[in-house]
């Protein structure tokens, strides 16, 4: 079954440019995984399971989109998880305490996230410091700010906000999605457009390919670097807003380690950590793969805590290995 799909993929791949191969392979493997799950678990191969993967990972998807920009320039942003948490915290505390309305809070949160990204990007660019350490400082900072706001989790009870969060958008045949999914999809589309059809997007790729060359070619490298961290900050903040829809609470310990999930999603999607190569579609697939692994685990349902982790590792390993093997075979 799986091999048949992959074979067909391979056959078609002959006419596909080499750069699309990893993404196609990833897509094929994703489908294979879904089919395998469907065979193994009852009630798995339904449309809603796929939609749930989207619903449950909309915020991760948005964050990963921002991360894709950064990684494409050859940078990295470790602050995303903390900025997500900070966003939930700010939203919740402003709505709970002074009772600000959501249409004021949400733009403010997005602004704060972007500003944090902007500052980090500026430091990376202006002082020539490795992004890892700058964004690590940003990570500590944002998480620290969360705790200064409060260590408890703050519920969100604003009626408009909750109503929106609990809206179900019914599709056909009992299938439904949440508004977050729509937002995430819009973000993905806009980002894909920016990467493919705008100068900013192309400069992102060029910077990742060779920063020095891009500079000598007269491209606005500095501006681009600042821009990608700002975008990532914005996406994290938006991810944070989506997470507050999902959780209806703000909490300093939300999204711990989400930066790793986002980086993993981007890299699983075939983007090179060294920059300059990769696609947004890959990132989407990366998020879906991580989400599907989770779904498989909960359907499996009998694993102890440690076997859960070992199992995640194994699934990841098998997936990456197959991805590697198939792409390598296609290239030779």
């Amino acid at each position, binding site marked *: 079954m799986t091999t048949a799909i992959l074979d067909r993929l391979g056959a078609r791949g002959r006419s596909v440019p080499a750069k699309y191969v990893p993404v196609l392979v990833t897509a094929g493997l994703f489908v294979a995984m879904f089919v395998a799950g469907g065979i193994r678990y009852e009630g798995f191969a339904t449309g809603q399971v796929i939609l749930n993967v989207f619903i449950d990972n909309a915020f991760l998807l948005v964050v990963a989109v921002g991360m894709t920009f950064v990684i494409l320039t050859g940078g990295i942003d470790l602050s995303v998880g903390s900025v997500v948490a900070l966003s939930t915290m700010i939203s919740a505390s402003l709505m709970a305490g002074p009772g600000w309305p959501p249409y004021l809070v949400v733009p403010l949160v997005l602004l704060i996230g972007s500003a944090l990204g902007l500052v980090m990007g500026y430091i990376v660019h202006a002082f020539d410091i490795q992004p890892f350490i700058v964004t690590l400082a940003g990570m500590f900072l944002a998480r620290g700010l969360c705790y200064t706001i409060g260590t408890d989790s703050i519920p969100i009870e604003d009626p408009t906000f909750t109503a929106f969060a609990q809206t179900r958008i019914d599709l056909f045949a009992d299938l439904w999605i949440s508004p977050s999914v729509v937002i995430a999809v819009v973000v993905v589309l806009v980002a894909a*457009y920016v990467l493919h059809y705008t100068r900013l997007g192309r400069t992102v790729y060029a910077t990742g390919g060779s920063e020095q*060359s891009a500079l*000598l070619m007269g*491209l606005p490298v500095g501006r681009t670097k600042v821009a990608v961290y700002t975008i990532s900050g914005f996406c994290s903040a938006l991810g944070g807003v989506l997470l507050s829809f999902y959780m209806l609470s703000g909490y300093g310990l939300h999204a711990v380690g989400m930066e790793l999930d986002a980086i993993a999603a981007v890299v699983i999607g075939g983007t090179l950590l060294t920059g300059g190569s990769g696609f947004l579609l890959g990132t989407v697939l990366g998020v879906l793969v991580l989400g599907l692994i989770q779904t498989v685990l909960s359907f499996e349902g009998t694993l102890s805590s440690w076997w859960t982790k070992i199992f995640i590792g194994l699934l990841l390993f098998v997936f990456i290995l197959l991805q590697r093997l198939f792409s390598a075979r296609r290239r030779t």
Partner: protein
Amino acid sequence: MSGIGKQFPGVRALDGVDLRLLPGEVHALMGENGAGKSTLIKVLTGVHPADSGTIELAGRTVSFAGPLEAQQAGISTVYQEVNLCANLSVAENIFIGREPRRRGRIDWKRMRARAAELLRRLELDIDVSAPLSSYSLALQQMVAIARAIDVEARVLILDEPTSSLDAGEVRQLFHVMRRLKEEGIAILFVSHFLDQIYEISDRMTILRNGRLVGEYLTRELSQVALVSKMIGQELAELERLHGEARTFDRPLVEARELGRTGAVEPFSLTIHEGEVVGLAGLLGSGRTEIARLLFGADHATGGEVAVGGAPAALRTPRAAMAHRIAFCSENRKRDGLIPDLTVRENIVLALQATRGWTRPVPRDQQDELVGRYIKALKISPPNPDHLVRNLSGGNQQKVLLARWLILEPRLLILDEPTRGIDVGAKAEIQRLVTELSDGGMAVLFISAELEEVLRLSHRVGVLRDRRLVADLPNDDTLTTDTLMETIASGGRA
């Protein structure tokens, strides 16, 4: 530009240099390796801030914060090493930063069409949507040129654009340069090929050790005078080396029907001890591919190789090195040097690799070897602890060459070894090659400069369209012209 000074840590790269560039002229910037030409260009275009001096453009004092500003002011530049993004397509590399757009979005179709057309004007017909990395260095150089000449510019700066181009491409480039000159564009041109300088330039500025020697009209300065001004002393008359057809009887490396699908058609080639075999061919004809196959850098898909009579499996560079085959690659930036290491470390790297990590090359042996080649090749600055990334292009090339020379291999494969090297050092390298082959070393010599191939080789293999089409002894009948003919006719004549 006047009174330009630039100090790098430990090196005074420029000291009070003046340069005048007039519209409608081709101005050659001359100097030995490390004289400061590239640095001057980088200061002019804002890559490095100047320590002192002023730059005026059309009467207004300017100071660019970066290449972007220089470009906006109408200065279009091809820097020395190929500075393009290998991950992007050819078309993008030409147009990035000023892509044709329609309703705000990049118009990919038009971009590809225009790129293809632009390259066709340079007589290149390649797939512009393929990534740049899939093309050879020479083609990448052409793409960089195409990018620069398409800009609406008042000043065009070309830093060694021809270092790996062959005669045809150079002619094409000069054609374009003349047209631009007529349009009133000022062109600054750097090259170590004196013939090219005399063919195209109107005036020249000569630098030596970061200082200005003077500005001259090209037609008023003889080649000999130019060279002596560049190196500060009379150069002993270039030895009239000429390889000759000789018969060698001890085959060292024999390739039979060796080939790689998509790269080179199967070929058979024998290289004898003490023999210098040249490879001639046009850009992309497969010379580099042959070299890479013989060194095990790429896997052959068919055929076999024998070294010293016994079959050998040259599957990796290591395996080839175990048979004492060495390969100095053409693309020093990508396939050669480790920019963060010092000159010393780069030179002993291959030797160290053959010894493994447990047996470091003793310090005094390192000093001896490195010192010898720094002197022989005139690497400047002559400091073995200088980082290679801070060397000038030509000096980097010398370091790479030194790495392979100290191995004292049985077969030395040299792919464009004199790329970007000045006249003095070039003569020295040619003398070294002759000496080594007289001592019994076999050499496979690849160069875009046919003259150089003829001067050194005993035998010349001719390639066309990735096929070895002829294997000619270098006798008196073989000249650059006959060689060109063979290449053009594909060996059938």
